[in-house]
């Protein structure tokens, strides 16, 4: 019982105060036949030294591959201060800030986070976060259906350029609520969503159009044209945007004439380690008019009885603990600790730092594309501008190449055929600011050797252009 402080005499005194002969007596309301015997299937306990040994071995076993994979999770530099402060006990072991006076630290931090997210997205308000980007899209879809009072259809247009797992997650979460998710095709040459493909929905009742920009392929969408088209149809626009990209690219709030109505996405690039997929956080921002439709916790600034500034959870009448079956969502938890990390991250980077990170990622990915496509067996899949990741097609079977690179402790990218079989032997590659020229060279040389080995004649390597 490693964390139980009771001495024998404590137990004796406490039982005497209760008037019970032993601890077992305290369970006398549980019917005997339901009581379990000894817990088998759980090993004996370990002390800290033993469990440390075990976990070190397991962590080392997994190596630390050179990562050229993006596809929704990105290997960015995280300043040391971010997690040093985030894991201070006062943030780490605090509960949801329902007792506002004893939680001003967390509450002010969330208010600052909300401010930063509205700054990044160019929208009016932000919530205190959702579970992750994918479930955030599901919540955005539900919110758009509630918020678009002109629309009765519950119909949402979702381009296939939206992250495939986001589309699946959204389907899981909204499928029992009379919502129709209609998939839109992408341009096979450009990798973007074609405005022409929207023509057949002209004049129909559409609740919202989803636009991921940069899209899953890294390709930049025609955000202005798509946004204006949706608004002309009476549809809302749900933007999904990578937060790093927003330091460089026009933010959702400035798309088209009126701007996107809701922005959501994965917050992981803002100081959260990749950690096998979570915990991350979903951010969500929207226009002021939609604030009462927003799911999740929201912090507001107000005053106390001495008219001093203070912070508190607000608009709680939207939430499940007040509205129960009529709440905007069943969500309760936000991803508080990750929001703490992201807020410190954004404070350390600032607008200029984050823009430089975005630029460096993009520059590195361009170098990577140039180094890899120097091999004649490798070429870009799409011909449109991208941001910090893009798919490359191989003229040899990609699985074998990937396996061989894994053996050299390189993560070569995301195999596109998993979700887009029509793209064949393509890899979605990404090089963040943490990759060096030498890293890129390592990848390129191993790729060349692997391709050489696979093609008996070998593909000739063009001379390097840059």
């Amino acid at each position, binding site marked *: 019982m490693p964390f139980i402080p009771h001495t024998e005499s404590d137990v004796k005194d*406490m039982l005497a*105060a209760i008037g019970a002969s032993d601890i077992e007596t305290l369970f006398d309301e549980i019917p005997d036949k339901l009581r379990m015997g000894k817990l088998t299937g759980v090993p004996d306990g370990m002390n800290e030294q033993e469990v440390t040994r075990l976990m070190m071995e397991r962590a080392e076993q997994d190596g630390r591959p050179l990562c050229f994979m993006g596809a929704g999770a990105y290997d960015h530099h995280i300043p040391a201060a971010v997690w040093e402060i985030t894991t201070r006990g006062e943030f780490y*072991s605090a509960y949801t800030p329902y007792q506002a006076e*004893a939680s001003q630290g967390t509450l002010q931090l969330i208010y600052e986070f909300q401010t930063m997210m509205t700054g990044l997205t160019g929208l009016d308000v932000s919530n205190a976060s959702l579970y992750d980007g994918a479930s955030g899209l599901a919540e955005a879809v539900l919110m758009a259906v509630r918020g678009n009072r002109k629309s009765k259809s519950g119909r949402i247009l979702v381009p296939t350029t939206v992250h495939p797992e986001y589309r699946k997650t959204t389907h899981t979460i909204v499928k029992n609520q009379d919502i129709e998710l209609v998939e839109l095709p992408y341009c096979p040459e450009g990798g973007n969503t074609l405005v022409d493909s929207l023509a057949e929905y002209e004049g129909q009742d559409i609740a919202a159009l989803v636009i991921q920009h940069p899209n899953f392929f890294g390709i930049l969408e025609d955000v202005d044209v798509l946004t204006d088209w949706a608004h002309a149809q009476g549809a809302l626009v749900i933007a999904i945007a990578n937060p790093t990209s927003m330091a460089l690219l026009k933010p959702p709030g400035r798309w088209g004439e009126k701007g996107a109505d809701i922005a959501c996405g994965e917050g992981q690039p803002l100081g959260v380690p990749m*950690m096998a997929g979570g915990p991350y956080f979903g951010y969500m921002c929207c226009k002021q008019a939609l604030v009462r439709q927003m799911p999740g916790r929201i912090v507001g600034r107000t005053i106390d009885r001495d008219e001093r500034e*203070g912070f508190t959870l607000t608009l709680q009448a939207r939430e499940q603990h007040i509205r129960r079956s009529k709440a905007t969502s069943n969500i*309760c938890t936000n991803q508080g600790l*990750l929001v703490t990390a992201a807020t410190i991250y954004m404070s350390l980077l600032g607008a200029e730092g984050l823009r430089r990170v975005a630029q460096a990622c993009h520059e590195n990915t361009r170098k990577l594309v140039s180094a890899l496509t120097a091999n004649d067996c490798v070429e870009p899949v799409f011909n449109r501008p991208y941001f910090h990741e893009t798919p490359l097609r191989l003229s040899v079977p990609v699985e074998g190449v990937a396996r061989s690179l*894994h053996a050299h402790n390189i993560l070569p990218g995301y195999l596109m055929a998993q979700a887009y079989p029509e793209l064949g032997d393509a890899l979605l590659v990404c090089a963040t600011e943490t990759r060096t020229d030498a890293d890129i060279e390592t990848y390129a040389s191993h790729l060349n050797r692997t391709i050489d080995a696979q093609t008996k004649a070998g593909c000739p390597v063009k001379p390097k252009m840059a």
Partner: protein
Amino acid sequence: MLIFEQSHPGRRALAQAPHQPAETPDIPDELLREEPPLLPAASEMQVVRHYTRLSQKNFSIDTQFYPLGSCTMKYNPRACNRLAMLPGFLARHPLAPVSMGQGFLACMYELQEMLKHVTGMPAVSLSPAAGAQGEFTGVAMIRAYHDANGDTARNEILVPDAAHGTNPATAVMCGYKVHEIPTDRNGDVDMEALREAVGPHTAGIMLTNPSTLGVFERRIEEIAGIIHEAGGLLYYDGANLNAILGKVRPGDMGFDVIHMNLHKTFSTPHGGGGPGAGPVGVSKRLEPFLPVPVVGFDGDEYYWITEDVRPQSIGRLSAFMGNAGVLMRAYIYARMLGSEGMHRVADYATLNANYLMARLTDAGFDLAFPGRRATHEFIVTLKRQQKELGITAMDFAKRLLDYNFHAPTTYFPLLVPECLLIEPTETETKEELDGFVEAMIRIQQEAENSPELLKEAPHTQPVRRLDEVRAAKQLDLAWSPAAE
């Protein structure tokens, strides 16, 4: 002062970004951002100092007793954090192949196995990101099960009136109507009302046991019989699993699906509001509907079980596998406890709760359900104080902050007037509990002699009571330089 108010244009944490800006000539001008976003402009030390100071304005388990009912605020071992954040785990890309993640997957698989044993459920999925998502998963599986059987007339979920708000909200998200079942005066489900409510339209019932009233539902087997006989399924809300860990298993009580709050029972941090992790366990008949991915093991290698082999799965709940880092902390905690340690969790959580209940009763406080055992928590009602002295549960709660104790849960469950739901957890010492009782006694005396001390509390916190009406009416959700 906000971080923005400490900003100076041009100031940066220079060590934290690339030395030079890079060119992006291939991105069309019309897609570039025109104005930089509003973010702080501060030095590294300013940022460190600001957020360190903010942290000091919080109550937390590491600094205060935090007897928040239904939240299980037990000690979060530091080792769990340190070891979950080993570089090898942090660097794992979620889509990296299983061959490069056997160490990580072994932990996840073993966690699944341990959770099966402690809940008595034959199959587990770790993917739900939090309690409410675990609830959603549970009810979505119940629906998928009925749909797969062509049993589509079932359109109603039963929820006791004492339930967490997430229960009815979840049922609605899964397309169900909610039927509330009243509680009898001993804190148990009203059996007569239950029998009347059950029928061919019943999809299932969502129950917490021990209930949110802090008592064990003694007729759980009878309830299970009634629901099952009608063709419905039983969903177990694992919010109070800490009370029965190693004592009784939801699977043995007749439940078909359970979610666990690892941020409660398995001591992962609450983090100021998350992240959580809400794994689900199911009976055999629901296994095909479990959310993906699930970790499999063929005796040689750990691998992902996905939609391909689970075509009836309700699907995915997040982009990747769920809150892996939280699951890792829970795994480390479970390994440190081991079998014997898990048995003792409920023992000492229950001992602490019953001790605190006995001492507060001796001190003259009223219980919502006198004559019942406390489980890991219990309810004090201040209805009498409210009537006689005009002092509310909120006043008591705020005054406790001045005594350096976090307040218990107030005004939940909704059906007990002026209630304090008190959960001490197993990791608190007797001295800490005694200190809390002393504070409650003194506050009671203050309520009688100088009630304004309570009405005006807290007096010692960074702010006094906040104007929540103003917060909701004059919405101020983001700072802007123009408004200052």
